[in-house]
């Protein structure tokens, strides 16, 4: 007789089986290449189609005050009548646009622009002409260019908070907090989809008893939770990298700017990682336990219960603009929501070390309880075919010391 492997060894086997069941290198690589291809296509297309970089010749009536020439627009006075100019524009392509101006009774101008067809650069031309006419009007009013600038931006706003815990704007890493919440959502949705497919699939494939003969239900669910956690982490990492690459691509390659990584609060990342891991464990364990109780994935009301782990993230989103308010403070300690709320609170508020430590400790204790409860629910749920347990039964299994068969 061969010696049975340890629970750890079995858990790891299930973890790697669960992970590789959904993770395919080839498909991952192909999907990333497709994304890269799409990015390149957008870039090339924009280069090919970009008509805003060309030089356009604009015919302007002699009586109009000539706008200043730019890299893209050359304004040329002409004495020709509109009819002749239209012929020159459409048949000889001598002009790209014709500018006609009329005075209106209220002192403003009616500007007509003629072009062969609708083009993106016309929008750019309009912006430039608005600037030109604003400046002209200001000059007529006797305003200097600097005065006009003040008129356009009469006040600058700066917020100062007496609550010194709130981080200043330069330090504020709310973008990191939002990023973390978005990544958590990506992780949760990945876990939800795959756990649903995996657990209900295994149940329908009638593999339960074969596995129960090899290991305990607790070992099985531990492995599944860890496998799905790896997937959630992979999904979050992948989403973060894709976001960064996308930002780099559009900001640097297309926008011609440098990468500004100050939006990420690096010092907070270890805390975010810790809370994210605990949160994903909590939610994955919960979802695995509920999925085990689902008999028919197409017609079960319990599928919607599996989405409950999204609630803490949504609640945090709703109150994150009031970092020192009671709501976010409560959510950041409450173990069912702290995984989402505490990192957000930490990113916008200076908090003493004991607060995240206490919050984390309570979350870990909840995770410990959830592991056992999920194991009990999983054991019973996976054994039920053709009939789903009632909520009452599920609650009694959750709080019981041991499940009976």
């Amino acid at each position, binding site marked *: 007789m061969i010696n049975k492997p340890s629970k750890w060894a079995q858990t790891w086997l299930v973890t790697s089986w669960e992970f590789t069941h959904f993770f395919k290198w080839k498909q991952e690589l192909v999907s990333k290449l497709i994304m890269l291809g799409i990015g390149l296509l957008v870039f090339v297309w924009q280069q090919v189609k970009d008509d805003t970089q060309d030089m356009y010749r604009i015919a302007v009536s002699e009586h109009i005050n000539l706008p200043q020439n730019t890299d893209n627009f050359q304004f040329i006075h002409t004495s020709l009548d509109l009819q002749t100019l239209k012929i020159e524009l459409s048949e000889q392509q001598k002009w790209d646009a014709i500018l006609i101006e009329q005075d209106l009774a209220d002192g403003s101008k009616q500007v007509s622009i003629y072009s062969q067809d609708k083009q993106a650069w016309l929008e750019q031309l309009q912006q430039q002409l608005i600037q030109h006419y604003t400046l002209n009007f200001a000059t007529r009013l006797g305003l200097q260019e600097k005065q006009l600038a003040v008129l356009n931006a009469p006040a600058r706003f700066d917020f100062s908070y007496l609550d010194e815990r709130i981080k200043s704007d330069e330090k504020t890493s709310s973008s990191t907090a939002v990023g973390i919440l978005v990544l958590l959502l990506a992780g949760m949705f990945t876990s939800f989809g795959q756990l649903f497919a995996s657990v209900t699939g295994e149940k329908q*494939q009638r593999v339960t008893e074969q*596995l129960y*003969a090899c290991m305990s239900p607790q070992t099985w669910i531990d492995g599944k939770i860890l496998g799905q956690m790896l997937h959630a982490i992979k999904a979050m990492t992948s989403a973060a990298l894709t976001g960064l690459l996308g930002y780099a691509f559009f900001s640097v390659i297309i926008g011609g700017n440098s990468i500004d990584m100050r939006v990420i609060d690096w010092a907070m990342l270890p805390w975010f990682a810790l809370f994210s891991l605990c949160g994903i464990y909590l939610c994955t364990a919960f979802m695995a336990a509920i999925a085990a109780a689902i008999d028919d994935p197409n017609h079960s009301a319990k599928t919607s219960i599996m989405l409950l782990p999204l609630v803490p993230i949504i609640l945090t989103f709703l109150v994150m603009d009031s970092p020192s308010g009671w709501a976010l403070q409560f959510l950041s300690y409450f173990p069912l929501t702290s995984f989402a709320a505490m990192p957000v609170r930490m990113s916008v508020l200076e908090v003493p070390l004991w607060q995240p430590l206490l919050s984390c400790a309570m979350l870990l204790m909840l995770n410990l309880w959830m592991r056992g409860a999920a194991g009990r629910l999983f054991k019973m749920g996976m054994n039920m075919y053709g009939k789903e347990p009632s909520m009452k039964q599920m609650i009694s299994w959750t709080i019981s010391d041991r499940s009976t068969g």
Partner: protein
Amino acid sequence: MELEVQQICKQYAQVQAINRLSFGVKKGEIFALLGPNGAGKSSLIRMLSGFTQADSGQIKVSINNRYYPFIPSHALGYLPEDRGLYPEKSVLKNIVYFAQLNGVDKTAAIKEAKYWLERFDLLDRIDAQLKSLSKGNQQKVQLITAVIHQPSWVILDEPFSGLDPINQEKVVQFLAELKAKGMTVILSAHQMAMVEKLADRMLLLNKGQCVFYGTLHAIRQQAKVSGVLTAKFSENIDEKRITSLLKDSAYQLIDSHTLRINLSNQHVLNDLLLILPRLGELVSLHSEKLDLHQLYLSAIANHGEANSDK
């Protein structure tokens, strides 16, 4: 006995699945569980495997001088009634995964898997997705996963179902090989011919109760009817005369010349041989023992009658 079951009961809602059942299984034997659908075989198997617990009574399994309330997972190879593997994965990956979960290292698992797949003519499908195999071939893969770690106890819930006669025969050889390796096999099956060929001892269940238990020989001893004697006469037989002469025996008139008498263990053939010539001139006499299939049908029918009488 390596496994002793004493007076166990199990009830599901209103159904008494197992009712005061007692029996034992010896080390290294093939022990068959027989019974019609719903007799309680799978419920019993689930209790023996530790998936569920008896409401009352006791199960005691002895392994290396230690006692367990069910067959512990480290000693168990199990083919459940509700069976299934991972259809999207290859045959080899399925087998190796279960082998590893049971403590076989990967290299040894691959070697063993190849050996058994060759035995079942499946070696050429080793890398095929399980779902691409026929139901019978999937069943064979499942059998391999149940025993690849060479457990000391093997429980097989209907190992012959879904298999053609040729493959059923292969499974018979497979089970004989397990026995030869010293494994104790508990199997439930409806294929009486296979069981008769394989099982050292058996337990017939009906409505959660023991109908008969022991070796085939012992069961014949216990059975009300253990054989049939067919007598053919040269002329018509008088039925009234049969009734008066064979008042203690169950019989059946096949035609006007042929009489079939159910033999119980109480019957003394000499007595019958004295009685039968008084019914007419005997042309032929043929005696046969009931096979397991006939014993099974007869026992279930008798048990049903006995229960309805109560």
